[in-house]
């Protein structure tokens, strides 16, 4: 059982997409989660619902609208064209946008739970110890919400690796640019190349298992360390 060059390219592209998406998600999801965990605004539940939408929508629906929005006739597409960036569909950047939206709840929700569990007290204590709001966030909230960040990173990464529908709609299957693992598996099956499909699919199952096991072991160990 060996991987073809095209399969290896798909694996590499998938890892790249998942890494970039996870970083974008952390930058985007952390402020959203922080706001959701602490706001009293009536906008809280509507925003919560929007963040959770990708959990219930078929990925093809999300992908379809992204395609329309980012296409040359859509508002986002018009904007990117005007900026001289071309259009996003069928590019790696388009995949990142799609994956980010699709995996958003998997990053925001663990972070939001971790921030909510913190409560006000540690932040108030830090304030009376002269820590400014930013200082409080980085010196108290982040270290105390560490398990939430770990869960968010692992779930965001793994969920991006596992996506199919959004990628298919937004990215198509351009080798080296948008053809990720899940698409490669699909094409192998379409072409009745079961051996190749097995290699990739089994590899993905092993990957998912190891990631989840690591997550559980790490959070368990951190809990133990905190209690010690």
């Amino acid at each position: 059982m060996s991987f073809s060059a095209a399969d290896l390219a798909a694996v590499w592209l998938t890892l790249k997409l998942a890494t970039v998406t996870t970083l974008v998600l952390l930058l985007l999801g952390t402020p959203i989660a922080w706001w959701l965990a602490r706001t009293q605004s009536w906008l809280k539940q509507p925003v919560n619902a929007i963040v959770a939408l990708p959990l219930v929508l078929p990925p093809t629906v999300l992908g379809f609208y992204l395609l329309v929005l980012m296409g040359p006739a859509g508002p986002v597409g018009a904007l990117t064209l005007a900026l001289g960036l071309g259009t996003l569909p069928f590019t790696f950047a388009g995949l990142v946008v799609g994956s980010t939206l699709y995996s958003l709840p998997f990053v925001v929700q663990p972070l939001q739970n971790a921030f909510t569990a913190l409560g006000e007290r540690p932040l108030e204590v830090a304030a009376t110890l002269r820590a400014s709001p930013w200082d409080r966030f980085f010196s108290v909230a982040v270290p105390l919400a560490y398990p939430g960040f770990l869960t968010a990173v692992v779930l965001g990464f793994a969920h991006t690796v596992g996506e199919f529908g959004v990628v298919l709609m937004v990215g198509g299957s351009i080798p080296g640019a948008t053809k990720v693992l899940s698409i490669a598996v699909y094409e192998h099956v379409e072409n009745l190349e079961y051996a190749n499909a097995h290699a990739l699919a089994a590899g993905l199952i092993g990957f998912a298992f190891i990631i989840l096991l690591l997550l559980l072991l790490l959070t368990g160990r951190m809990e133990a360390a905190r209690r010690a």
Partner: protein
Amino acid sequence: MNGIEADLQLSCGDFTLTARFTAPGRGVTALFGASGAGKTLLLRCVAGLQPGVRGHLNITGECWQDSARGYFLAPHRRPVGYVFQEASLFPHLSVRGNLEYGLRRIPVGARSVLPDQAIELLGIGALLTRRPAHLSGGERQRVAIARALLTSPRLLLMDEPLAALDQASKAEILPYFERLHATLSIPVLYVTHAVDEVARLADYLLLLERGKVLAHGPFVEMLTRLDLSLAHGDSAEAVLETQVAAHDAEYRLTYLECASGCFAIPHFDAAIGTRARLRVRARDVSLVLTPPHDTSILNILPVRILAISEDRPGQVMVGLDANGAALLARITQKSLMLLKLEIGQRVYAQIKSVALAE
């Protein structure tokens, strides 16, 4: 003005806090009141932690809030040390990390309390490498106090720091408070619902009831003001400032002296001249018209009746002047009638038992 000047209003649901008072900029000011009176809320307003508070606040000559001109000093810019009811140490940091958290945020030139001093004052030198989870309740609270002190605060805010502790841990911490009081001249606002907790330390008392400052004044005077609920009921007591005059080895007694007279109490170790506060409960004081000679009670003082006020049904509270110091006696309505006691009369107070404040 070097003291604390506050005029703060806050509406929190159906609770309204109206705190208008001044307090001295030195010593311990006790914020006293039943639970739900708004003590913690007031402390949070002073620290700037409570959103929505209006009014103005001046601390030892510095303005921290003045809503009239839209000024509000952010909590992290207020030089306070806040000790919460639960120690609230950062679980992700060691004891040393907790102590350094505030210290590192104070410019070196502005540090008036040094780490060694705070560590030694609170006796936590052996705990520095430990995690908060491995400390006892009393140890945690001592670390929290040291952590607050290391920000070199201009005002120390303590929110019932002993409430969450058992009796043994309380007894363990109190001596540290006393050393703190004696060593550092940082004014303290101390929230409590138990007067005996601060009987040894408090200099000033602020009485809160249902969100309002009912009265404030020097601690020993406030305790005996018959117009306040503090001076009524079973727990009413007077506090006398005395000093150790002599020890009686034969009878195992210590004599304490003050302007009012001399008290004999069970022997305790203290050098002659040591200042000690004596608590005299109103229900332990009875009144006689002539000095009794055949009584087992040792502590008898000549006093003058200042005021008589209703207490529980059938009982009255009598305010007494013992040569400058105030005492309370709770007697029955019947005794009042039989002895024909009236204001201005000179009588003798028989004190059945006294206790050192601790």
